[in-house]
């Protein structure tokens, strides 16, 4: 039985977003790497745009992820003005973040490759 840290069993829906969360950090890093400094709303839009209909994103979790990445020193944040002239916090990837992104991307590709192979194995059986 899959349980979260609070010991409650997870419904199918939340499990989906939880799975996402593990990789959300990676996606945000990649987004910032590709598009340059963005605010939280922008990041959420970009991920939505790329993954529409596949992932359901609780956009709030983006901010948890952002805080975590900040604590690791992989991204930096500063206040600026958004396109419609409102005050917004802009996040940008740091040099260390770039390195981490490379590392994680490589890892991810390897894992997903293995998982894909494993899944094919099961189908053949």
């Amino acid at each position, binding site marked *: 039985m*899959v349980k979260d*840290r*609070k010991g409650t069993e997870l419904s199918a829906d939340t499990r989906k977003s939880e799975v996402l969360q593990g990789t959300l950090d990676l996606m945000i890093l990649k987004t910032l790497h590709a598009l340059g400094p963005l605010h939280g*709303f922008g990041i959420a839009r970009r991920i939505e745009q790329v993954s529409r209909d596949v992932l359901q994103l609780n*956009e709030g979790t983006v901010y948890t992820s952002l805080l975590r990445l900040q*604590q690791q020193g992989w991204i930096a944040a500063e206040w600026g003005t958004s396109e419609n002239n409102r005050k917004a916090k802009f996040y940008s990837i740091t040099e260390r973040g770039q390195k*981490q992104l490379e590392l994680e991307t490589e890892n991810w590709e390897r*894992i997903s490759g293995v998982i894909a192979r494993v899944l094919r194995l099961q189908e053949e059986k």
Partner: protein
Amino acid sequence: MNQPRGSSLRSFAAKLRGFLRGHQNDPEFEEEIHEHLQLLVQRFLAQGMSREEARTAARRQFGNTTSLQEDRRELQTLLSIEALWHDLRYALRTLWKSRGFAAVSIATLGLGISAATAIFSVVENVMLSPFPYKDARRMVFPRIHNTQQSQDGGRQGYTATEFLEFAAGNHVFDGIVAATDDPVLYKQGEGTEEFDGARVTPGTFEFFGMPALYGRVLQPSDYEPGAPPVFVMRHKTWVERFNGDSSMLNKTFVLNGIPRTLIGIMPPRFAWYGADVFLPEKPRVAEPGAADAREYWFVLGRLKPGASIQQAQADLTVIANRLARVHPQDYPPRFTVEIRKLGDTVVGRIAATLYTVLAAVGLLLLIACSNVANLMLARATSREKEFSLRALLGAGRARIVRLLTAESLVLAMAGAMLGVLLAWGGLKALVAAMPQDTIPSESVIELNAPVLMFTLCVAALTALIFGLAPALQSFRRDLNDTVRESGKGMSGGFRGKWMRDAVVVMEVALSLALLIGAGLLMRSFVTLRQVRLGLRTDHVFQTVLLLPEDRYKTAEQATQFFRPLFARLKALPGVVDAAACSALPPSGGAESRVEVAGKTHDEEWQTLFQYVSEGYFRVLRVELQAGRVFTEAEVNDARKVAVVNETFARKYLPNENPIGRRVRLARLETAAEPVRDAWFEITGVLADVTNRGLQTPIEPEAWVPYTIAGSEAQVLLVRTSQDPGTIINPVRQAVWGTDSGVPLGYSGTLEERIGEGLYAGPRFGVVLMVIFACVGLVLVTVGVYSVLAYSTAQRTHEIGIRMALGAAGDDVLRMVVKTGVRLVVAGTAIGIGVSLVLGRLMGTQLVGVTAYDPATLATTTLLLMMTAAVACWIPARRASRVDPMVALRYE
């Protein structure tokens, strides 16, 4: 995500900042969320929703802001109480699921912690804070040490003059008191009893800073001339002699002929000078030659804060040098003033032993920790899937470490609770087995607050030690490790394996050394118990009669007391015989230079001797080897006859008939009541009787009639036909019926006394060693088991392949057992080596058995091997039942 080492430090720093900032709301973050929601609402409005619909949709898309805040807080804090609670509940649940593991771990830790707690309790109560007195650590006493004497020690008694000089002339004490012995006789009913009295100087009770339990302590006014005579009593005396009767207070007792009022009873732990009663006395400079000029006071000073022992030594040396010029007869030609701390004399003897034992116990605790660490590693291996899944689901590594830490903490605390329980029981046994006078009478060995604090710290420390290994391992592993590494056997790492093997070898070695030590002590103790004392201790009651010196000076006076007393005693129902002697058996009495008529020799001949009545030989049932013991008539006439022991005859009259030979006991000619021309005729030879303890060879001894000297014979022995413990009251009546002014002391059965004097020390050593050896054996069992369980769990895959390739269950069993046995054999070899080295140190404590006793070595080694074999067999059998299909499917 993979986190490089530096980054976990950085996030820790961020958390620390968050922790220091506290849990306030983050306005910037709220603004950010607000903006985001506004933008979402605008977007939905643009899609044609109503404002209400747009707001709901925006909130749905954004998710729960409260849980977001919580997540954020958790990221920013070190410890959230809530999360901790969840972790603990989770830990309890998982541990409950693997009850066997939890039980073994808790029992192991409990054993280790209990041993540490018990011994620390002894150390704390006996050595760190044995005294309940105020500033006891600064209390010291001076000792005049003769530097020409090689052995330790020196004079500790000072004349009143010396005490007054010390008190007035010193610059290092902020308080100084003294006490002197004063045997106190008092009328009790129809007879007389004795108190160990102490006369104490003004300010004594203020010095110790302890108020009375009932009534009051001595005050300055009690010391004034003409003040009503009063005294204070020790708690123990009050309870044992007066059943704790509170109506005793303010009653008047006639002490040494003076009516005195009991004004106070001290609290239980006040035991200054070991006295029963405390009488006020102002010491004054005695007239030279006066009776009290030779009265000695024990001096105790309290160092001023900051004053060192060396300063005190220098200061008192100046005073002592001055005194030595005035009273040269009291000082050796060359001396130093030694400053000793209160309790040093008692505690000093056991300090080394205690610290050694504490170190051994620490080692046991470490072993317990490494055992539990191994068990946890073994469990972590089988939980790898669970952890990978958690990591995959986004649980941070810190989270997993926290889960494991919570489990460790729960185990450690449960272990601590069990440990305290065990220690509580163990301490009772320990204190009961402890020989008398090994600890200061003030100290009470108990589980007090400092000890419990110590236990708590130890438990937390153990959790850290044994919880670290699996936690670190989970740090090394990451999300894709389990996927990437197909060979499970590799993930533990070879470095870890080497460490674990080394720990097991060390455990086995230590455990065997303990077992051998315990075995040797046990054999030695059995031998000790079988030593023939040469006398029958059963059915003998003994007591010491304190004959008042003024009325009992001459042999005649003593005889006039003992003759009717013996008659009275023999008339009592249940009494077989009675006798008097001058030394408490099995001690052989005083020493004397001896000459044998017709023998010349260069070296000085010595013999022990004691005064006895003719009944002595019958009461103790000693065996006569030649001649006869003296008769009642000879004793009554104070004839100079003697009986000697076998050793005397063999040593001083070899190959001759000793009967009728004459010997001179020189000491008698210089005694308090000198015997002129102390030549005695030997009438008989006795079989040897232990006279210098069990471990020293028997010395020559002579027995002479008690009627020869004054009131030397003060020990009364009574042989009974019933339990000698019940005879005390009739004996007391008989003594008081003869002379109501004679008190009885040290009453009891001879068996108990000999047991206390001869066997209590060695028995305590045996008890301690056996306890530690048992703990060691249990720990080594768990240790061997846990390491094998871990390595087999890791090798499940390999074992599966072996079995798939045709290995039978028995082959696997043999393989695993072989792994274990290799470690055990290595440990055994080291253990035997260690104990052979240690044996030399133990040699002095052993009687009738050598440190290399092959029977003990073989028995203990066998015991250890068998226990270890069982520990190997359980995981081996489990491994041999591995289903190859299941084992391989794990991939």
